[in-house]
């Protein structure tokens, strides 16, 4: 059957063309073009988003089963595009201020985005690997982008070495799966595994390796060790990107792997994810207490958040998956706001990263302090902020599926983690004020912060709209 329908891949194709075109422009005009290239990339991402909204969102499998498009994938891709637009807008002025305004930066972000879009669309292990590597390689370079800084270079190297190791594990797992099922196509793997009366141990072996590779990408414990070092070392704008976008892509891909090819291995992968989720929550809650660098703290915070999100994956119900997607959406928008504030922590053009640098912020710049307070309360999951609803739906799903222990431990972990979120508020509002920050905050950063804070505060007013679309996305995985 010859099937050459490229329509569902239009956004990716469009972005790839734009990226190559911009590369040529950059080569021609050098670093003067950085601003133009950056804004044009944002623009292109926005167009890609509009194009995608115009597509037919029913299930399509194209290119001989290589790629797939459906509601779940579409929803994820929207999140990825929104996150990339946000992260890139935050970066434009920042890379200039940090003296790394080279035109490759926006193009690398664009490449990474294409990689992520492709990997969540993958319906074949090969396509999965190609997409994953495209985004990973772009991100390795971005982590080391501030190459005259030792920390940034170190972050890039660490990320690269460990990333390579995880890719190796992933590939090893895929090869084992291929060995036992004779296929790399998701649909065929699912069929083969579904018809076995007895699960060969090699398949489980392969599953463990594949999941280890995926867990590395979402920085879930115990595959999280790279996260704090890389988050701290990478330029803040890159950290923002890391914290927001690849996690959404990786968790969506993880969900697809678990439900499509490995659907019949539910009993086994539930145990793995259970363990990973629990450990992530514990590490995220406790390790962050000892941190004094706020980027490092955000790293542990993101590990913890992935732990909560994975609860929704473990429960293996429609409610669980829709809760995960909602959680990722809320997490993405909250994180965008937090990083917009972190980027504004500058004195005399020098970025500040210590928690103590926030001291007395409420007196110097009350708007930043109150926004940060709102976002921190949301991160801690305190009503009526959006973060509370994210956690609420997750725990609700867990309780419905009778995962009581996981739900209780999750709530306890979020109590512990509330400590370090509240500590930031305490430092901002009750500690003595020090010198004010640089007053100028670029327009794009303000817009991102405003959207983030408004979303967090206003979510309670009309949650049904967003909840319904997350539910629609999750439903796809359960109708097949």
């Amino acid at each position, binding site marked *: 059957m010859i099937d050459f329908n490229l329509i569902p891949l239009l956004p990716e194709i469009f972005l790839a063309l734009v990226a190559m075109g911009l590369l040529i422009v950059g080569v021609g005009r050098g670093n003067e073009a950085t601003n133009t290239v950056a804004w044009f990339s944002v623009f292109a991402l926005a167009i890609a988003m509009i194009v995608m909204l115009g597509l037919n969102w029913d299930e399509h499998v194209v290119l001989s089963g290589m790629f797939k498009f459906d509601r779940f994938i579409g929803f994820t891709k929207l999140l990825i595009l929104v996150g990339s637009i946000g992260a890139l807008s935050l970066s434009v002025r920042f890379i200039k201020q940090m003296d790394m305004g080279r035109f490759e930066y926006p193009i690398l972000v664009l490449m990474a985005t294409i990689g992520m879009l492709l990997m969540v669309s993958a319906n074949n292990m090969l396509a999965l690997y190609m997409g994953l590597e495209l985004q990973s390689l772009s991100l390795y370079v971005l982590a080391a982008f501030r190459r005259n800084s030792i920390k940034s270079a170190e972050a890039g190297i*660490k990320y690269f070495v460990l990333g390579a190791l995880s890719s190796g594990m992933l590939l090893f797992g895929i090869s084992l799966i291929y060995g036992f099922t004779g296929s790399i196509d998701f649909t065929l793997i699912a069929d083969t595994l579904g018809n076995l009366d007895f699960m060969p141990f090699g398949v489980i072996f392969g599953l*463990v390796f594949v999941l280890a590779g995926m867990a590395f990408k979402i920085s879930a414990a*115990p*595959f999280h060790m790279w996260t704090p070092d890389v988050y701290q070392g990478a330029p803040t704008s890159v950290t923002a990107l890391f914290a927001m976008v690849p996690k959404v892509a990786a968790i969506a891909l993880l969900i697809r792997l678990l439900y499509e090819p490995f659907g019949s291995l539910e009993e086994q992968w539930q145990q793995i994810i259970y363990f990973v989720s629990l450990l992530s929550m514990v590490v995220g809650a406790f390790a962050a207490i*000892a941190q004094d660098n706020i980027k490092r703290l955000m790293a542990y915070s993101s590990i913890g958040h992935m732990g909560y999100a994975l609860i929704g994956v473990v429960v293996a119900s429609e409610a669980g998956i829709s809760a995960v997607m909602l959680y990722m959406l809320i997490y993405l928008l909250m994180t965008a706001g937090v990083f917009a504030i972190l980027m504004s922590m500058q004195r005399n053009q020098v970025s500040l990263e210590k928690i103590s640098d926030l001291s007395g912020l409420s007196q110097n710049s009350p708007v930043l302090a109150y926004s940060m307070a709102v976002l921190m309360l949301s991160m801690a999951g305190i009503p009526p902020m959006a973060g509370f609803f994210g956690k609420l739906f997750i725990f609700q799903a867990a309780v419905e599926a009778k995962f009581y222990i996981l739900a209780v431990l999750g709530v306890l972990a979020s109590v512990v983690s509330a400590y370090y979120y509240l500590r930031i508020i305490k430092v901002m509002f009750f500690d003595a004020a020090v010198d004010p920050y640089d007053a100028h905050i670029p327009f794009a950063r303000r817009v991102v912060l405003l959207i983030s804070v408004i979303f967090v505060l206003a979510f309670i007013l009309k949650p049904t709209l967003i909840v319904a679309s997350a539910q629609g996305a999750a439903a796809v995985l359960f109708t097949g």
Partner: protein
Amino acid sequence: MELLVVFPPLIAFLLAFLFGKSLGDKGAQLVTCSGVIIAAISSIVLFFDVAMGGHGYTTLLAPWVTSGDFSVNWALKVDQLSVVMMCVITIVSSCVHVYSVGYMSHDDAKARFMSYLSLFTFAMLMLVTADNLLQLFFGWEGVGLASYLLIGFWNQKHSANAAAIKAFVVNRVGDFGLALGLFATFALFGSIEFTTIFEEAPEMADSVLSFFGHEFHALTLIGLLLFIGAMGKSAQLGLHTWLPDAMEGPTPVSALIHAATMVTAGVFLVARFSPLYEYAPTALIVVTVVGACTAFVAATIGLTQFDIKRVIAYSTMSQLGYMFFALGVSAYGAAMFHLMTHAFFKALLFLGAGSVIHAMSDEQDMRKMGGIYNKIPITYALMWIGSLALAGMPFFAGYYSKDIILEAAFADHSWWGEFAFWMGIAAALMTAFYSWRLLFMTFHGKPRASKKVMSHIHESPPVMLGPLFVLATGAVLAGFVFYEAFVGHHAMWHEAIKVLEANDTITAAHHVPFWVKKLPIGIGLIGIALAYLFYISKPKLPEATVKRVKPLHTLLFNKWFFDELYDAAFVKSSFKLGKLFWCTDKQVVDRFGPDGAAGTSNKIAALLSRFQSGYVFQYALVMMIAVIGLISWFVFKTGQGF
């Protein structure tokens, strides 16, 4: 109209409290004063409407609590009883508000002070206009709160804070009784609406309630529990220790709250529940005896005190005793009458005392006063009027109200009525004595204050004297004018107060022997003469007398050792118990609970940080161990080889 009485003080409170800073001192004073003055004018209009015109009515504001059979509304009950209270509250409150503008002119927190006064006024109005026990309780607690805030208004003074806490805690004992009474009422009647309770009270005259495992006569039990609440708020013997200490608050507060209005809430409560008390004769006997003892004991203590405000405070307590034994002999109208006249002359005395204190540069000890009558003649004259009214000299307000109380007690022809009558006569003698002792010590004799203080003495400004004149008018005229309306043959009360035919002591009081009618005046004159003898003609006499009756004087001077007794019996043991719990909490609960958990969290955090060494090979090792661990888990679990 009743809305115009109750809500302006609330609005004034909110404005002055929330926006005090932006309104400024002048603005806050203006807002609060106009709030209560509007209320005062409206309540006078309402008085003529309801009390003189005819029957009362109830205005429903909003439903409050509805739960099963239990439902309560916010409502304003306007009848003769509440309208009298409204007038007293708002008129005295207006005087005190205006007076405070002058008295507190050197204070830093004028807006806060004025707002608290307005809050008190509002809460007191809610109390008296309640048509159910819960709203009454709301107002009851509201005035308690305002009283607490105002006693401790000068919170930089340790003694003021201690007095505020004492007032709150002692009142809590009474409030507990009131709350139990409320519960008992609901248990018996299934409702806490006044109308229902009063209608059904006659049918319940023989029912019983089980309390602490014993069966009690239901109405007596309720009556006694409510009376415990009244004792707390109205400083009756046993629960009175907070009132003298409450004088730590600014003097206008003492005049408004601790003389004229809040302390009479207990009297109002019993009068309001007259339809219930009439069927609980045992409870009435208790009320009579407690009231009579209070009148006597407080008067004896008043003889020996030197703080000008404390003397008046004990006099207040003594007068409240009069009101209670009037209630006890079913002379509710007489009690309300005395409540009203007392409010005028006692507020006058307090504000007058405030004027003296103001003139003497905040000196309150009468031993350091004297010889100032010609320097502040207006205050002096006004204090005379107040004292004449208090001592019950003819044609002043107190003469009418105190006499009818004593006559009613006599006319009850029972052992408790007789007891109350003689206690009251004794107290009247002492009242006259200590009132003139106060006048003579404060204004006459040789000046005992320092030169500096004496040179500063000045008459108070018009803003302080004006309210005094208003109150003085009341102290002179209120008795004569309202005698018929309150205790005459055709009193105005109608349904507001219920008296059984057999208990109608007020009617009987008009027919007592001649000597009973004239005895109080004679006794009062003797008291004044004695005071003159002791403090003007023979100034050495008091010291000699004190030496003669040393033990008795010690007992009285130390206020019958109530404070010491309570301190030993309750306060010390409570502190010990508190310390024990505190230690347990600190050493056991905190150590293994919150502190322990926090400590453990820090340890886990440190442990996890140690894993984060920064070496890539260690990170890789952790990943490999994790993968191998997961695989081993499955191998172990399935027990299956390759």
